């Protein structure tokens, strides 16, 4: 891959400030980078880009973050804390000792001034898609000042479409887009995130769409409850494709389908744990959440005793 093309693959800046998470950022977690990300490759502060949309809660001019790992990860998926391809674990993150294997020569040169290359999480505008390169993928991290990795996505920088504006989509992405049936709002390249739900609601798709409002809120919620004595906090299910959601009896355009909702769980989930989830969710801008113990399932059991549904604006 040429240096120019590499540079054009430079993408994604997430802007965060501790003040943006004042209610949840002061949770006693020492600010640190995720231990698995090599120091040499990260922590390059990048100034905010005028006019670039910010994730919810972000403050312009206080940028932190972004890491690009140029990896050959075609066909790989982010599963929990691991990067897997087939049965092979290519790398891991977010836990002691975890490390993404990165070839130093594959790391693209920094070009902070590259026009249009520093927008919001999700698929950034201006992402280079030109050419005939061999199809590399970037693994892009976003993390907050408390060290919480809140978003990881695989981003293609190749595909041979020859156009910067027409990114090549995988067959799976095209299949997802077909389910939405709305190319204007839901183009295939939008589905490059890794949802929590591996099957069922995601209909076994390899990727999906997570709205930045959700990923930011999710990070705040999980970081806060974990720092306040809640063990095993995790997301059971978030994005669902239309067909998967239909199979789950959901509305075709539910907030899960729009990547705005998650069902959160934790070890020993009870009313006390639920309260901590709610406290953070409202602070992090949640729109709706389930009350503890409300609703009955088909067997007349209370639905919301084992998890909490939270969705964002």
């Amino acid at each position: 891959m040429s240096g120019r093309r590499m540079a054009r693959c430079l993408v994604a800046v997430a802007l965060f400030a501790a003040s943006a998470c004042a209610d949840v950022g002061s949770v006693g977690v020492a600010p640190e980078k995720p231990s698995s990300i090599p120091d040499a490759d990260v922590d390059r502060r990048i100034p905010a880009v005028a006019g670039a949309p910010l994730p919810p809660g972000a403050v312009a001019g206080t940028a932190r973050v972004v890491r690009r790992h140029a990896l050959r990860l075609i066909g790989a998926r982010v599963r929990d804390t691991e990067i897997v391809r087939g049965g092979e674990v290519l790398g891991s993150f977010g836990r002691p000792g975890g490390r993404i294997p990165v070839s130093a020569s594959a790391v693209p040169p920094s070009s902070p001034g590259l026009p249009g290359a520093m927008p919001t999480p999700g698929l950034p505008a201006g992402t280079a898609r030109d050419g005939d390169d061999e199809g590399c993928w970037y693994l892009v991290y976003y993390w907050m000042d408390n060290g919480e990795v809140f978003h990881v996505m695989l981003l293609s920088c190749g595909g041979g479409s020859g156009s910067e504006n027409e990114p090549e989509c995988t067959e799976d992405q095209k299949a997802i887009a077909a389910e939405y049936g709305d190319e204007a709002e839901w183009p295939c390249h939008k589905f490059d995130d890794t949802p929590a739900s591996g099957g069922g609601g995601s209909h076994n798709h390899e990727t999906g769409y997570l709205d930045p409002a959700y990923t930011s809120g999710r990070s705040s919620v999980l970081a806060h409850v974990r720092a306040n004595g809640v063990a095993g906090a995790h997301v059971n299910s978030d994005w669902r494709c239309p067909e998967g959601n239909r199979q789950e009896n959901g509305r075709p355009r539910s907030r899960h389908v729009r990547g705005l909702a998650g069902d959160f769980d934790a070890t020993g989930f009870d009313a006390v744990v639920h309260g901590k989830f709610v406290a953070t969710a409202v602070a992090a801008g949640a729109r709706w959440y389930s009350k503890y113990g409300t609703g009955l399932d088909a067997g007349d059991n209370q639905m919301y005793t084992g998890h909490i549904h939270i969705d964002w604006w």
Partner: protein
Amino acid sequence: MRGAMMAALALALAAVPAAAQETTLTEREAVALLAEGAWRERFAALNVALKLGPRASPELRLAVIEAAWAELRGGTDTPPEAEAMFDYLDAVAGLRDPRAIPLLVEVLGNGSAASNALADIGTEAFPAVIAAVSDPGEHPYDVFGGLTALRFLLEDGALTAGQVERVRGVVGDRLTGVQDGFPVKAAIRLAVALGDRELRATVEQIAVDRDFAAALVSPLLPDGSPTDHAYWVDQAREHARIFLSGGGADIGPVRRPGSD
């Protein structure tokens, strides 16, 4: 006649991809489906209301409100795993219809969308909201949502001097005695927003005096079981410090006016 119309609609919906269904229904058809359709058909009808928001006809708005009440009370044919309540509430929240006030008050404890929707309706929602937050038996989440709605109304400049005075009263009550942590947090923020010297002094005491805060915040959940008392005391004190300092503007719940 109505049965034939319903059957025709059901057949038509079955033949149309989900993504396109919302454009195939008229408001009148949506009203009929919300009243008598099966759950998937009601979803399709809901899309019409979601799209129109406050521009929906009075008949459609009422049909959405009534359908949402039915979902809230349970006993409809909607599978529970559909989590349909949130879809219905989304639709209701966008209507700006005063007839939705009782329902929105009922779900104040389900998220800031209810508080925002009540603030969108305006001062007409005030009596129901102030009644909810004044009720000592109200669930703490609901009181939190109600105090938040009052803050939104205050910040919108929608309240009369008399109404502001009543808000001062309920905030004072929620910062007195023993209260659940949720209402305390909302009351702290509203107290600071009111700019009342006496209430601000109480908030300052919460911030600097842990014993005072610990005595105010209940160590029990509404059902009498213990909660993480230290956590809620810390939450209240941190909230007090942040808002006394003039910060916290981006901490939720934040006002998000609905669109016309």
